[in-house]
């Protein structure tokens, strides 16, 4: 088990996953940042959050996606970024599952809010579960991420 955890290839596998996941979250955040009203409507449509929290989530969440996405891509505080990504994925999976359980037919609101593209289904849940697994890989197995974190660590060790 410890040999598996210490395998040096994790950093490279993780790098590929980080670039992919980071790209997904960067692609997801821009429309939400530019059009918070449309994203708030998407959140309200899930009928889970109380009205008082809908707009606040619409304002803040896309910025968490942006920052976490950038951090994953450049490898800065990588595990913290992976933790945030995983927390968001769990939140999305729960929200979509509840909506599906309630029989709601609606757009996902994951990437853009333009007329209900990307309707939710159990495929959406499966997709998010795969992204969650990728995030967990980065979080649990990449102890020395390639990128800014490794540069800073090397600099500290050389000092």
């Amino acid at each position, binding site marked *: 088990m410890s040999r598996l955890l210490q395998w040096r290839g994790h950093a490279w596998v993780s790098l590929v996953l980080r670039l992919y996941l980071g790209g997904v979250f960067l692609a997801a955040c821009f429309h939400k940042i530019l059009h*918070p009203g449309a994203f708030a409507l998407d959140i309200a*449509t899930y009928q889970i959050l109380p009205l008082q929290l809908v*707009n606040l989530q619409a304002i803040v969440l896309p910025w*968490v996606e942006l*920052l976490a996405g950038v951090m994953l891509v450049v490898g800065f505080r990588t595990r913290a970024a992976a933790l945030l990504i995983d927390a968001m994925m769990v939140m999305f999976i729960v929200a979509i599952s509840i909506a599906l359980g309630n029989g709601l037919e*609606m757009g996902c609101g994951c990437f853009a809010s333009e007329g209900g593209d990307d309707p939710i289904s159990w495929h959406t849940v499966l997709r998010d579960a795969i992204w969650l697994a990728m995030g967990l890989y980065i979080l649990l197995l990449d102890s020395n991420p390639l990128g800014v974190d490794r540069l800073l660590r090397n600099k500290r060790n050389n000092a």
Partner: protein
Amino acid sequence: MRGLTMVRDAALVVALSFALGLGYNAVHSEAIPVVAKVPYRILVPCPVEGGEVVPLEATEVRWDGSDLVLDARGAAEAATWSPPGARSVPYDFLDPIADATVADLVAVPVERVVVVGDGLVPDCGEEMGKELSGKGVRNVHFVRGGAPAVRAQLEGRQP
């Protein structure tokens, strides 16, 4: 210790996201109130207790009169453009289709009833088709992609 650092970093990112989100929202042209005061008008129909409705591609619609084509979109959209020969029957997600309308449709001697909606999710054409089918109209179809797909097909371009 590393776990605590990771959680602290994640919390800092969330705090920074609050600051960036609220700051950007304060100057954004599409700003929304931080706390919504009026409930969002969400339109998520409960699953219609309807009958079977068969999806069609736009290319499969017959324009020779053997299909009764219904335009389920609102009157304003239908006035802008409507499929040739289509009968405008605006579908209201909240109100059931009037029995008189159903009786009219049943009386038309056609092989198929084809409902053209807006192509969104949920598609008003599909929902109307389900309701009509559930109320006894036979051989009801809806067009995948709705009016935009039909228009693109008739005008010879990609939808």
